[in-house]
């Protein structure tokens, strides 16, 4: 797979930073009595990747389908380049493309026939050989689509989405089924698209993917956005973790209470571990403040904090707490 970024939008010199390409405002979608999406708002600017995360059934795909123009909002609005995408007016459909959650390929065609068709149907297509090289399928041109592996089909999906030089790209779990190497190469392709000004919406269950690629992200749960912001701001809101092995002669009740830090004790490998989650607005200093207090406490008692670890919250921590409903408590 060629790892250099592509020429997606650069050929047309369409770096545009004048405003958001996609604006979603208080989007709601009802199916009868069931409300699948409950007032979702976000925007995506050219050159920005917005990751929409969430559990299965959180409303992500319904949101994307509305942005793609397949569903009319029950209320609220979606605008792509200032236009309502419902029904896919030409001002929208010629400037957007997508990798769908499922492949959507014609199994009876070969790889060359598939990309050739997409090329011939596009107004200003990219070169097919270049695209197949980009996604690492150059040697599969004559192979029938039905004979491709799941990961190879995903790579072909990505190539098809790039044929039309989209300015807005919806990526619905684009690396599902890919091996780690192909996934990393796909991330490089996506990073290249960002650099060339493409506005990207990404959904994924691989949180590392969102951490690597997202400029901003939102975590949806039961139709609502529970957490939103840049990766740094999202993680900052969930505290820094300071963990150590609980000394044998220290009971749980002996652990000191520290300002703006929550204590949790858990069993790992048949040993008790204490974890302090340092909260507070002093994001840059709070881990130091907590560690310093713990070191002082340990020195006072003449004990050593074994396996002392300091780490920030991971996206997985945040995601799991949102999925568990903990976010209900934190955001209410």
């Amino acid at each position, binding site marked *: 797979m060629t790892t250099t970024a592509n020429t997606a939008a650069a050929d*047309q010199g*369409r770096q*545009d930073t*004048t*405003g*958001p*390409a*996609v*604006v979603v*405002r208080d989007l709601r979608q009802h*199916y009868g009595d069931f409300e699948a999406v409950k007032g979702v708002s976000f*925007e995506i600017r*050219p050159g920005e990747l917005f990751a929409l995360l969430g559990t299965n059934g959180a409303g992500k*795909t319904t949101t994307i*389908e509305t942005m*793609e*123009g*397949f*569903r009319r909002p029950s209320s609220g609005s979606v*605008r*792509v*380049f*200032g*236009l309502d995408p419902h029904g*896919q007016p*030409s*001002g929208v*459909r*010629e*400037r*957007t*493309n*997508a990798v*769908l*959650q*499922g*492949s*959507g*390929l*014609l*199994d*009876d*065609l070969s790889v060359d*026939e598939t990309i050739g*068709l*997409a090329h*011939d*149907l*596009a*107004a*200003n297509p990219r070169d097919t050989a270049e695209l197949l090289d980009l996604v690492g399928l150059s040697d599969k041109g004559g192979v029938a689509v039905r004979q491709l592996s799941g990961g190879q089909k995903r790579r072909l*999906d990505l190539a*098809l*989405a790039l*044929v*039309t030089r989209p*300015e807005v790209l*919806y990526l619905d779990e684009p690396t599902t089924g890919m091996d780690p190497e192909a996934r990393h190469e796909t991330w490089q392709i996506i990073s290249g698209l960002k650099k060339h000004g493409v506005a990207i919406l990404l959904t994924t269950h691989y949180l590392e993917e969102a951490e690597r690629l997202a400029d901003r992200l939102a975590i949806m749960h039961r139709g609502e956005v529970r957490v939103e912001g840049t990766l740094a701001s999202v993680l900052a809101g969930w505290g820094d973790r300071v963990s150590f092995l609980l000394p044998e002669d220290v009971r749980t009740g002996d652990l000191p209470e520290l300002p703006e830090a929550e204590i949790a004790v858990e069993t790992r490998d048949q040993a008790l571990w204490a974890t302090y989650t340092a909260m507070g607005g002093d994001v840059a200093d709070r881990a130091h403040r907590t560690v310093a207090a713990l070191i002082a406490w340990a020195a006072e008692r003449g004990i050593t904090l074994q396996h002392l670890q300091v780490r920030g919250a991971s996206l997985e921590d945040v995601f799991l707490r949102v999925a568990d409903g903990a976010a209900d408590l934190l955001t209410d």
Partner: protein
Amino acid sequence: MTTTAAAPERSRPTISRTKQVLRLTRTEFTLFVRYKTAWMFLFLPLFLAFVTLQLPNDEVIPGFGAAELAMIASMGTIGLILGVGHPSNVFTARRESLVLKRFRVSGVPQSVIFGAVIGVVVLFSLVIAALVVGLVFATSGGTLPRDPLMLVVAVILSGVMYSLMGLLVTPFVRNAEAAQMAAMVPMMILLFTGGGVIPLEFLPETARQVMTFVPSVPAGEMAQAAYTGYDAFGGFGSAEEKGYLGLWVSALPSLGVLLAWIAVLTLLVRRYFRWDPRQP
């Protein structure tokens, strides 16, 4: 809060829909040839044309017996079998496998996607019609259509109409197998009411009048008129031989019925066709 999105549209290259339809029709042709089930829709109209050879062939108008007229009328059912059978089957399968959605998110307009499958149905309908003409030619002692243009128009319009009908089957079924079964309902009803299986001459006048509005009747009658040069639109009982213009004037009501059905079905397809396998 940002209230409007930016990024004014730049001048992007465009591609004509005609070019897109022709290109996608080429792929539809390839897919049709590779999809063995589709071949059944080619053989069935030919089989029905052969079946008419078993009918008594008493002369109805000079040069044409009842069997030959039934065979000619069967050309109106080519589009029925191909058009209702093929698009309903493959478009349901493609909807479920996200192929249709893939086309849409790539910016391919609805009209191009529909136009291509209609194009391949019309193309194969014309091929089968040509074979049936050869059959009539052989059995009638070398008679060719008097008005080939009208015959072609009848085959094309019926192909378009029935393809739209086939597309309209897809929203009501969840998979290709169900689509095949569901398509049999309109196919069988229209096959029996089209005049190819039960000649309309045997029906009472009132029933005949009503039947002229059934989608399957006008194409068969236009085929008969086009082939024989007789005004077949009121039955052959008092049919007269017409000139070129006279025949087209007589065909106007049938053309109108076909075009009206095409218009109605187009609206219904636009309104009810589903691109997404997910049920709301």
